[in-house]
Structures are given as structure tokens and as C-alpha cells.
């Protein structure tokens, strides 16, 4: 078992526990858009990412596909289309640096290269300690304070490279949340 954990990418081929299955069933049952009794896959996926460490493991998607009555391939097609969702494991905190026009003009390239250096990873990678995943993003809609980035649900603006160590340290110290 130990070996399994090491050789398999986290969460990829782990069989689902009974608790997982119960959680997924409840999620699908309760996660209905209020008036129509319809399901929003997106809402479900966001909830799943919260539970499974910012990614959507294959077996989980398989079970959810069964529960909502679609095929795993269909659901996979849905998930891989949207950049906020990920099927590959990501760090505990997802850093999304805006690189679009307005942020580009205000210094986004310097922010991105500082982060690469500080974290020692490239875009699309997670730090070896599993703490941060670094991503480049299109406009985050807060261009009034460019250059910008988001870490999980928190937005940061008017950034300079000097601000970054403080922001990262605060997130690191934030512990488990």
C-alpha cells in the first residue's frame, strides 16, 4: 500500500472509501439549483475541488458521473474545458497570476518571473512541499489595481515583486485552511 501511494499520482487510482461515496451522494443530492431542481456541474466541481485538494481525481469523477447519470468521458470533457478546474493534482494553494493586457502593461511579467524564482517552479507546476501551484491566468476582472493575482479566493492588487515574499509567507503561515 505504501508503495502504491508513492508510485501512483495522488488520488488517481485510489479506490473510493465508503465515506467518499456517502459524501458524493449527498453532494449530488443537495447541490440542486434552488427552484428548478437542476444540477449545476460547475457548482459540484467547485465543491469537489475544495474537498480533494484543488483537483478532481478520476475515481471521484467516475462516481459523480454515475450519480448524475452521464458518462465519465462526458464529465471529463466538461472538466477539462474549464481552466478553473483541474484533473491533475495541484498544490494546497493555487496562485493565479493575471498576464492579460492591462496587467501586462503594469508589470505582470516581472511579477510572474519573481514568483517563478521564489517558488522554484514554472507555470503549471506545484512546489515540492505541495504548498503552492503556480498558474498564469487571463484577466481576473480587477484591472483597476493591476498587476494582480489571486491565491485561492483572495485577490491581491497593485503588486510589486517586493510584496510577494510577504504574501507567500502569510499564506504559508495560514496553516491548514
Amino acid at each position, binding site marked *: 500500500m505504501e508503495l502504491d501511494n508513492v508510485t501512483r499520482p495522488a488520488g488517481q487510482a485510489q479506490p473510493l472509501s465508503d465515506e467518499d461515496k456517502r459524501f458524493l451522494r449527498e453532494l449530488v443530492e443537495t447541490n440542486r*439549483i*434552488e*427552484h*428548478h431542481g437542476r*444540477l*449545476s*456541474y*460547475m*457548482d459540484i*466541481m*467547485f465543491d469537489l475541488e475544495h474537498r480533494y485538494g484543488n483537483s478532481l481525481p478520476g475515481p471521484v469523477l467516475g462516481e459523480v458521473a454515475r450519480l448524475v447519470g452521464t458518462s465519465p468521458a462526458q464529465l471529463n*470533457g*466538461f472538466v477539462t*474545458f*474549464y*481552466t*478553473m*478546474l483541474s484533473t491533475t493534482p495541484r498544490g494546497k494553494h493555487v496562485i493565479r497570476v493575471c*498576464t*492579460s*493586457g*492591462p496587467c*501586462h*502593461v*503594469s508589470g505582470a*511579467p516581472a511579477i510572474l518571473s519573481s514568483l517563478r524564482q521564489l517558488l522554484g517552479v514554472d507555470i503549471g507546476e506545484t512546489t515540492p512541499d505541495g504548498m503552492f501551484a503556480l498558474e498564469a*491566468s*487571463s*484577466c*481576473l*476582472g*480587477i*484591472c*483597476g*489595481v*493591476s498587476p494582480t493575482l*489571486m491565491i485561492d*479566493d*483572495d*485577490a*491581491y*492588487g*497593485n503588486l510589486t515583486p517586493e510584496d510577494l515574499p510577504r504574501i507567500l509567507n502569510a499564506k504559508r503561515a495560514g496553516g491548514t485552511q
Partner: protein
Amino acid sequence: MKLFSTQIIVPVDSNSVLQGALEIRHVLEETIAKFNLGSQVSVVETGSLGIYDRGVVLAVFPDDVYYGNVIPSDVEEIVTEHLLKGRVVSRLAIDRSLSFKRLVEKESGKSQQKIVLRNAGLIDPENIDEYIARDGYGALAKALAMQPGEVIQILTDSKLQGRGGAGFPTGLKWAMVAKEQSEEKYIVCNADEGEPGTFKDRLILEGDPHSIVEAMTIAGYATGAHVGIAYVRGEYFMSIARLKKAIKDAQAYGLLGDDILGTGFKFDIEVYRGGGAYVCGEEFALLESIENRRGEPRNKPPFPPQQGLFSKPTVVNNVETFANVPSILLNGSDWFKSFGTPSSAGTKVFSLSGDIVNRGIVEVPFGVTLRELIYDFGGGVKGGKHIGFIQTGGSAGTVLNDKYLDIPLDFASMKAYNVSIGSGVVLVAASDVPLLPFLAEVAHFFWHESCGKCTPCREGTLQVKAIMDALVNRTADPASLQRLGVLLNLLSDTSFCGLGQAAPLAFESALRNFQSEFDTALAESHVPETCQEET
């Protein structure tokens, strides 16, 4: 409502929150309690005050004093000096002219005209009573007393055109849905705001969510729809929360639900979230996404008013378009047409970004010029520099030089002068910002956001990106500009949806207005030896 002699306004839009507004509010409330001022002073949360780059701003009314860059340790001084002793803390006071309205009245005699933003920054967006106190839901009551056709007629007469980019007449769109025979119809609010440089829809939703609830309900009555759906981009957490609260409160007041205002009209609104895909702003891609599928555009025709969500007649309107509707119904179409120009009625909300002194949003009548937007409202270019280039309309917009500063912006001049207004982006780059790396980023954006459904866009955006990168790295081969021209034509002529069709705009306009930048890059290019055989 309790009456207080003094109000302190704390903007809690997300820009302010990320500068620490919530902590300031907390300290403020504690300090007011500590000095026993609770019965005289109220702390009111609002959306953005339109003042940027001044950290957390507090406004004290009726004194009309604004404080900027406020940090928690400043709060006690403001309370003891200003609130207790009536002395302005001059160390922190900022010139109110920073708020756009004053600035413009002072410098050019023009002022903002707030229709869409009439409540943003003035009312507590989470308090339905404050919205109602400012004539909120009055337009809905008025509409429900009319025939649906009369409501649409007012809208048609007002000449309101869509603010999401395409400018389609809103009254006509509603009329198309109204005349369809179907039990099931939908009203969809497009709040996917993804055009780089646009943040107005977020501020409307954060600052005045009830105006969208009211307008969607009016649209439902006018067209015979009973379900509204707001599709809000996934990152807009505060917009989503405020909108959901507004919907709940409206339900509690009988302004949504099975029997609205006792008229028997039934309407409700649901909120869906986006997943971070620019193409989902395209109306059919957005509907696909609501239907739990990949956000890929559909063939047109049929258009959404004929076969939209679940193949039923559907109105899709932008947030800003909806936000105009209540005022039009209350004040009439002639009132609305008194703003703007003959081709373009009403106002436009512009998002100012980049190297501009006062970044933020500004609402002005159509016909405004870039010079007014950048210098009068925006306070000019940072550091007193010259303008290098201006991008209007977003990444899917035009790249302009300073020769365009005095063209009045409206739907007619857009066509006449090849200037995009699009979603209202005005991105200014100072003269020391190099153009080609910027364009390479725009190319990267389209390549990244192409949904991949059609070949011209999927492959074309990749090729445009490669050429732009080569120009930046000075490795472009001599034929690359010619190839770029062919590619751009191919993209605009053969792409399946608006993404691929509009992607060339930035490059075509840059080639027109900054030809020498391209020529220089080409002249300085050396094709790497390893590649030479292939070219």
C-alpha cells in the same frame, strides 16, 4: 429606519476589501462603540466610490469629507477629532475632486451621468430597503401595470442597444422573444465579464445587485418568461454573494416568486457560476455551459431569441444593458435619448486601466472622447508621460495612437473610424511600454482562449502567436508580415464565432497605426540558421 446625524461610508467593493476595508470597518465600529457614539453615527457599507489608488477611503456625511489611505491605527484619530470634536483630520483628508464627478466638473465642465451607476457607492447593496428608498422596484410595479407590449415599446423607443459588445437593439431582442409561442422561455444575464480590462459588470453587481434582479424580472414580464438565470464568472465571489442575497431578499418581499406584487405574475432567478473560459461570454457558449456542457458556440441561425437555452426562446443581455432598464421605464424613452448622440442613446460605463492616474470606472454619455476619458476623468498618464498606445474595446478591440484622442465615441464613429468601444475598455500604455510584447500577450490570450472547435481559430491563433513571438525575439523571417496579413483575413472571414472573428482587430489596427514598429522588428530580425532551410 433609524436616523443618525452622521454617516461614515465605507466602500466594500472587492478593490477596497483587498486593501483592508473590512478590518477598517471593524475597528471603526469598535471605536464608535468605545466613545459611545453609536446612537449618532452610523457606519454604512457601499460599493465603490470611484476613487482608486488611495487605499481604503472613508467618506463622512453630511460633512462631505473624504479620507484616503486609512489604516487601522488612523481610525481612533478620525473618531476623536472629527466625530467628537468636529475637526477634519487634514493629514488624511483627500481632495474630493478625486471622485470623478468633481474632477470633471472642475476641469472641463462635463460631468459623469449616472444611470447605470446611480446607486453604486450611495446605497448599501445588501439592504433592499435602501434600494427601494431610491425608487427601487418602482419600475417593476409600473411595468406590471402595463401590457407587456407597452413595456417593450418603451424600450424600443429608448433606442437602448446592448452593452456587451455587439450593440444589438434591446427592445427588438425582447420583441423577438415575446412573439415566440412557447410555454418555456428564459431571461439570461451575461455576467461572465472576461474581456481583459473590463471590470464594470463586477462593480454594478457588487454596488447595485437589485437593479439586475428588477430588470430581469421586467424582461420576464415583457417577454412571457418565468425563469431568469444569471451566469456570473467564477472568480466574482462578492458579486455572486451579493446577487444571491438580493434574490433572497426580493423573494421575501414578494418581488420575486409565484405572485409578484399580488399581480399573479411568476418569476424567479437562479445563479450559475462560470469556470474561467473567455469564450463562455459568447452567448451560445454561455448557454451550453449552463446546460452542463463544454462552452462551445453553436451555429447561428437560429439565434437565442428563437432557440436558446434548452432550445427555448431566450433573452441574453449584458449586466450593464439590464442596469439601464429600470431608469428607462421610470423616466421614459425621451429622457433616455436626451443623453448621448443620435446614433447612440444613453451612457456607457468605461473601465480605465493601465498607465492612467485614476484607474477605475466612469459612466458618461456616448459621444465622449478618449481625451476626456484619459485626461479629464482619468487624470492623465502616470508620471506625466506621453501616451504610447491606447487599446479600446478590450483584447478583441483596437490599438490606437494619439491621433484618435478627439473622436467622439459612439456606435456611428466606431464604424467610421475603425475604433472599437466593445465592453468599454480604455487601456493606456505610456510611451515607454513596448508595443510588440504587448501584442504578443494579446496573441497568447486568443490562442489560450480559443475553444478549439474550428480549425481557422485553433490553428490561426497559434500561428499569429508564433509570428508575434518571432517579431519580439527578432527571429522573424522576411515573409512573416505578409503571412500575418493572410492569417488575419482568414481568421476574420472563416472563424466559427466572434472570438476568432474579432481576434485580428488588435493586430490589424496596430499594423495600421504603428507600421514602423513592425518594420523595425523585421529589419532587425535574423532567422536562426537552423530554421533557414525551412523558410
